[in-house]
């Protein structure tokens, strides 16, 4: 079994009010120099056997159909080492 990680982030042009709220809290709490925060999601997908190109392609398909809404989100897929 191997683990593939899918990171999903709102596209840069989509407003992220949650990230903005976190950034606001940072300055209130004294964390200086934080200019911007954007919040995303991380999915850990366990796959059978070795992670070959075919397995990765399957996870990419999963990401674009289910895990991410590509209207508003970008995603990246990588093998967890």
């Amino acid at each position: 079994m191997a683990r593939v990680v899918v990171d999903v982030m709102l596209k840069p042009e989509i407003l992220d009010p949650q990230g903005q709220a976190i950034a606001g809290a940072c300055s209130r709490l004294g964390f200086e120099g934080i200019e911007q925060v954007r919040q995303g999601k991380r999915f850990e997908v366990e796959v059978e056997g070795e992670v070959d190109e075919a397995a990765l392609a399957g996870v990419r398909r999963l990401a674009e159909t289910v895990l991410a809404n590509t209207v508003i989100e970008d995603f990246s897929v990588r093998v967890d080492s």
Partner: protein
Amino acid sequence: MTARVGVVTFPGSLDDKDAARAVALAGAEPVSLWHGDADLRGVDAVVLPGGFSYGDYLRCGAIASFAPLMSELVPAARSGALPVLGICNGFQILCESHLLPGALTRNSSLRFVNREQRLRVETTATAWTRDYTEGQEILVVLKSGEGSYVADEATLDALEAQNRVVVRYLDSDPNGSRRGIAGITNEHGNVVGLMPHPEHAVEALTGPSTEGLGFFTSILARLGDKTPAGV
């Protein structure tokens, strides 16, 4: 024959009973549909009600959009044949199914908004708004946490150019929706999605007005004469 309008129940649907009641008050026969059955039971139109299907897990409406019932509904709706109204979570499901463009995101205020909301009906050329007059202002209920409508500029321009913005928010901006959009339709005018709740404004006893009823009487009129929507 009385028109039969299906109301789908997903796990976490809240407003299916209210939607069925609105359908009945309009004079149609409500038909309960179950998300897990790939069977539309021969209904003439479908309402996807509000609520929190699957607890809003992953994204609002995302998991519901893959329900067995949706595998029957999506092709029928996409072809223009089946009228579908998505209210609140139903609108989110329609966007997640790509029956409607764009997406609903977290309210810009980060707060759940629950209020009486004035809307302007921008087009009557849909299966669900033909009983209104263009520019008519109606008072319904808005109650949502992820109701901020977003789409890229090209999509927004196309929606406006093709007269596919169905309702727009009046008064103060409730959620940061682009161009004040509260509801839209597809290219055939048979699929309409909106965040506010017309089904909660159908009786004086429980609603702020009865001005939401027009969505449900519109579909009766449409089914009565079988005129294609958008004509």
